């Protein structure tokens, strides 16, 4: 972490960040939080590194020289850190089963959730059922982020912008489809179907093991991104156009939401899955299944959308120079 703060080479920083992500994921593994580790691996290491890198190709590799010393910043960071340490000194001992966090509602989830939802993976039942509304919220956050990127990058190419881009030392070139790399092309052709299968496995296997719509969506998106990098944007857009992606990203949210609306129509509370079937356990299964599909679709579509807008932008700039 210290290295990240001291460095000026943004590329190296991104790499270090992904190492940091790996370490975090391993920590989560050690602490038996497999689901969190999985998410960190997929999102923190995989996708966010990719997105940062594609942002770098747009901006340039080195940060600008700082003119002032950030003394005030150092000061406030020091205060915050000491406050945090001060506060955590009295926190419940690590791993103690008697810590309040494990005593109150967590006990309920652990003892009751199997009976109430019929799902072995407690994380999934909490995320998709007990706190399903939070998950809908998170999904909307991702959707909003996608819309934000679209707002910023779509059709914003103006002459003023480009001249500024040039002054910033653009080190990368337009991403060329890697035609000459036969090995990459063949290996990726072999891998892509397998990864797609894996994404589907993660999508539908969340009931029993770590996984779920978020991770599956990310894995699915990474396949498409791999395809874009190797075969070029144009080839990809023949199958998946941006308009479709926009539609899909909205569709996922709507699928999730419509489950909730359906329960309203049946006179139940929002996102109450029990109306889906007479057997409550069956109903929970069905509800979570549909909801996870919605999550998967929006996450995948949004991430691909963001990446494609980035690459489209690179292609624009390459064409103009």
């Amino acid at each position, binding site marked *: 972490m210290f290295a990240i703060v001291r460095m000026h080479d943004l590329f190296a920083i991104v790499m270090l960040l992904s190492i940091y992500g790996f370490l975090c994921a391993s920590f989560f593994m050690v602490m038996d939080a497999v689901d969190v580790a999985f998410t960190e691996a997929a999102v923190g290491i995989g996708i966010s590194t990719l997105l940062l890198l594609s942002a770098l190709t747009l901006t340039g590799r080195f940060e600008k020289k700082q003119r002032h010393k950030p003394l005030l910043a150092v000061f406030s960071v020091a205060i915050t850190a000491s406050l945090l340490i001060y506060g955590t000194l009295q926190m419940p001992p690590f791993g103690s089963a008697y810590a309040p966090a494990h005593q*109150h509602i*967590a006990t309920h989830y652990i003892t009751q959730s199997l009976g109430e939802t019929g799902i072995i993976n407690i994380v999934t039942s909490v995320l998709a059922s*007990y706190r399903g509304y939070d998950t809908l919220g998170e999904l909307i956050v991702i959707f909003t982020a996608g819309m934000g990127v679209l*707002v910023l990058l779509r059709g914003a190419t103006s002459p003023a912008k480009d001249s500024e881009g040039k002054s910033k030392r653009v080190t990368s070139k337009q991403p060329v489809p890697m035609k000459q790399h036969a090995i990459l092309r063949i290996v990726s052709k072999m891998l892509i179907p397998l990864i797609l299968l894996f994404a589907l496995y993660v999508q539908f296997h969340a009931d029993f093991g770590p996984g779920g719509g978020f991770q599956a969506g990310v894995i699915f998106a990474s396949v498409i991104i791999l395809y874009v990098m190797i075969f070029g944007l144009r080839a990809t857009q023949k199958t998946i156009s941006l308009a479709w992606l926009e*539609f899909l*990203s909205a569709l996922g949210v*709507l699928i999730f939401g419509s489950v909730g609306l359906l329960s309203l129509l049946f006179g139940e509370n929002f*996102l109450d*899955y029990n109306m889906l079937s007479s057997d409550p356990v069956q109903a929970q299964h069905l509800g979570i299944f549909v909801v996870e599909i919605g999550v998967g679709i929006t996450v995948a579509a949004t991430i691909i959308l963001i990446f494609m807008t980035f690459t489209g932008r690179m292609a624009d700039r390459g064409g103009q120079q």
Partner: protein
Amino acid sequence: MIAQLPILQVIVPLLAAPCCLLVGRSKLLWFFALLASAMTFVISLVLLQQVQESGTIHYSLGGWSAPFGIEYRIDLLNAYLLLIVSSITSIILLTAHASITAELNENKHKLFYVVFLLCLAGMLGIIATGDAFNLFVFLEISALSSYTLIALGQKRQALTAAFRYLLVGTLGASFILIGIGLMYMVTGTLNMFDLSERLPQVEESRTVVTAFSFLILGVCLKLALFPLHWWLPNAYAYAPSVVSALLAATATKVAIYILLRFIFTVFGGEFSFTTLPLQEILSVLGIAGVLTASVMAIYQQNVKQLFAYSSVAQIAYMMLALAMNSTNGLIATLLHLFNHALMKGALFLALAGVMYRLGSVELTQFAGLGKRMPWTMAAIVIGGLSLIGLPLTVGFISKWYLLRAALENGWWPLAIFILLGSLLAVVYVWRIVETAYFSPAKAGHNQIKEAPLRLLLPTWILVLANLYFGCDASFTIAVTELTAQALLGGAP
């Protein structure tokens, strides 16, 4: 269906947003968005009435009962805030079509409405929820969408302003998250009501104090309490006019709601004001904020920026009132939430009219506009008088309660500072009036016409509301009195 209103309040705009992506034409989109926000307005009216009749409404999401699932809990404070946000947003949205046609590229209209509705849904979600983590999730939705809305501004500075806001907002959000995480650690629950019952058992723990300070700091970043306000003026100034109106009228109100909720409901007023020297901090920062921001406002050349600084000052007034820790003080805060939303809504919508005709809101451009755009300028004058706190406007009512609370506490010097703040407001409002009415019109401005009715009408709805609630404040005072008593009387 009545029982489902609490959730409909939030999910109507939330799900209308992705639907917008599927709609084609700009005018249709506008109509659709307007419909969604008008629905939230109607729902919030019904909710307020219900709460007044039968007390707090509980609604468990997913059918899971309170601490295990997420719960919506609408008491008087929630209902009041829901009404403020949804009503003002609906009125602002009335102007959206005309205003963004003038200010945005055609290809961004669709995204504008999507993000605008998301922002509305985020704010309503924050207010309606009774769950601390759910609040954070919706905070993220509203924050992300407001960064995006600001970045839609025409000038390049809009991007920098949005980025600054993004940095500060993210910092604030992560502080809030740390606070919520620490609270979960010591209590094992995320439900606000549950938290308020369990926190007193562990209130000696340093972890709780840390959680509290992180929460307060995070929220203060969000609500631009002086001296953490530096992101605000540019964000308001460079955003599209509709967005400036939305943010100025509603966004900070929501942040203040979060503050009130955590101070009075979750932690309890007694704990909050004894563990940290909250009274001293808030009153000193409040006074400093009122004076500095008002003085800064005097020196602004851009009228949007001028009113943005005045917003910082008004927020400082609300904090000052909060610092009194008395019923009247709290009433003053709550009244000013509503009244300030009315004033700033009217002012920024009037500015949208100016922007529509002139394409700029620099003060120099205002020369002679008093004759060219009489209605718009009259709206600005009345809004300005309300800011100053002249009788017959809403500004007077909230200033009156603030003064009463100050005198009740025996804080004489404070009363003087409040009057001084009003005098400074006279100065910055006078600058606009002087340029608009007493300077000769610029050469090229002879062709300028009055703003179109589509902009003028919503502006004047808000202006008349300013006057109406200034003359007859019985509704607002009745609601805020009960709310203040409920907040101070412990958990609802």
